[in-house]
């Protein structure tokens, strides 16, 4: 704007402040800004802690209980047991915490009004959303994967008491462990998309919980024959196919792990794209 300052008055002297080189990617600055925003509020630390604790502690508790009560189980139940996926069952708790964080990092901007500060500083709204989504999903994936490794090894140690354990080199085990982290990251993104779309914390969390937790239960009311044909395509069951057979994906025939995960990512992409369009068009 130096061009527009009055010709009769000197332009402000600004010896120390220079606009960055025009080739410096704006996205990196926006992502760094979102990184600072995340780590300068307490709720981030709490929700990430609960995510990690949920995955590790809840998973370990289930593994321990399973080993303890193993004798009483039917042969069929024993045959269907997947020790890798079972030790990762804590994802069910973890997803609530990471989803809450995903919702709150965007809805808190609306509830506090700081979205206007954000968008006045960066009118490239789509890039703001992309920067937020990138930074958050990387953090969620790292926390998710580290937690799921901890849960896996802790769980296998507990299952080893009864000789039920598997090891990380067993077929599908590593996929389950990393898959849990990836699932949590995409759950976070889905929540972020819902938050950006709905803009109210309570509403977005309600939709998020409804979609991942209530909808699958609802479809259990269907006759068993037609059930899994539908439920395996639900976001929850599709995404959890990457983790493996747990108590939480009721489909009797899950999609194959990566196909299921791809379906889950597609749902998330649709929500994010709609959120992107809404953010670009709506008044803030």
């Amino acid at each position, binding site marked *: 704007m130096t061009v527009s300052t009055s010709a009769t008055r000197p332009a402000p002297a600004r010896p120390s402040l220079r606009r960055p080189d025009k080739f410096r990617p704006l996205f990196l600055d926006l992502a760094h800004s979102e990184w600072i925003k995340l780590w300068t*509020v307490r709720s981030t630390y709490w929700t990430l802690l609960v995510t990690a604790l949920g995955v590790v502690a809840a998973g370990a508790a289930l593994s321990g209980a399973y080993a303890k009560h193993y004798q009483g189980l039917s042969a069929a139940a024993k045959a269907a047991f997947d020790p890798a996926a079972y030790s990762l069952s804590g994802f069910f708790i973890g997803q609530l915490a990471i989803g809450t964080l995903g919702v709150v990092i965007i809805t808190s901007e609306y509830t506090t*009004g*700081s979205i206007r500060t954000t968008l006045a500083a960066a009118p490239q709204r789509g890039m703001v959303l992309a920067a937020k989504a990138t930074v958050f999903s990387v953090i969620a994936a790292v926390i998710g994967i580290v937690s799921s490794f901890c849960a896996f090894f802790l769980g296998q140690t507990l299952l080893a008491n009864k000789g039920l354990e598997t090891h990380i080199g067993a077929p599908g085990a590593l996929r389950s462990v990393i898959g849990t982290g990836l699932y949590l990251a995409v759950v976070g993104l889905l929540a972020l998309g819902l938050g950006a779309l709905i803009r109210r914390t309570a509403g977005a969390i309600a939709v998020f919980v409804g979609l991942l937790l209530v909808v699958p239960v609802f479809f259990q009311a269907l006759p068993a024959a037609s059930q899994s044909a539908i439920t395996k395509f639900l976001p929850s069951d599709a995404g959890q196919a990457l983790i493996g057979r747990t108590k939480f994906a009721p489909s009797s025939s899950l999609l194959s792990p990566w196909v299921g995960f791809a379906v889950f990512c597609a749902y998330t992409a649709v929500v994010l794209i709609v959120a992107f369009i809404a953010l670009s068009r709506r008044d803030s």
Partner: protein
Amino acid sequence: MIEARGLTKKYGATVAVRDLTFDVMPGRVTGFLGPNGAGKTTTMRLTLGLDSPSAGRVRVGGRPYRGMRRPLFDVGAMLESAAIHPGRSARGHLLALAQSNGIPHRRVDDVLGLTGLDSVARVRVGVFSLGMTQRLGIAAAMLGDPAVLLLDEPVNGLDPEGVAWIRQLLRSLAAEGRTVFVSSHLMTEMAQTADHLIVIGRGQLIADTSTEEFVRQGSAGYIQVRSPDDRFAQLLRQHGATVTVGDDGTLAVTGMIIATVGELAAHHGIVLHELVAKRASLEEAFMELTKNAIDYQPRVADPEKRA
């Protein structure tokens, strides 16, 4: 500079801003004046690209805001004081904001110093007083050392010392050749700070004039008369004066000099309890000007319309 052309914004059936056209020039403080609900904040939001106009356009430095890259170097804005996350420290807020535009982090300490917030830099904004929040808003606006500043009601909630500080700051920023656009609903405050005034009411432009001119026009005097004699108003009118009778029976007389009023009373043997030349205060002038342009006039009766 800021240029608004035919700027219109509707929210559903409500027209918040209607066909606003004005320029905000550099090198002076321009006051943006109007009663609450007149459309000042809406205009600010349209200028910053936060809301999209229903018609017309507004440009900052010749460009639409939505097309600007790293805009904090060009435009600093202080929005309503609530546009900050209360859980973040002042420093955290400014750091994130600076980083989003690639402004070096040392600049954060500069603006914290400039606004006197150094000692509370690490305190959560949620516990800030209104005055401190306002200072933080100013600090944020100054981050990019911009040539254009938009401040929405910056003196709200400030103590007299803070008001004086802002006034001084705005003047010196304008003296450096910057464009300074400040909204307020307080006429007297603006009269002391602004060089130029843009006045709106009910979303429409009412005046776009120098403060000096506005004050001159607005201060047209009248004569205040109180008399127990009801006939006096009629008598004054018969002699060519314009008389308005107030609720308490006081008369506001224009179109006649004070000496004539007194002589007229004496000649007809009318008792006067008060005879005084009044100059309308700026606040009164402003209210007079925007009287027909206030959306929410307090109304006593008329329950049907209110329902």
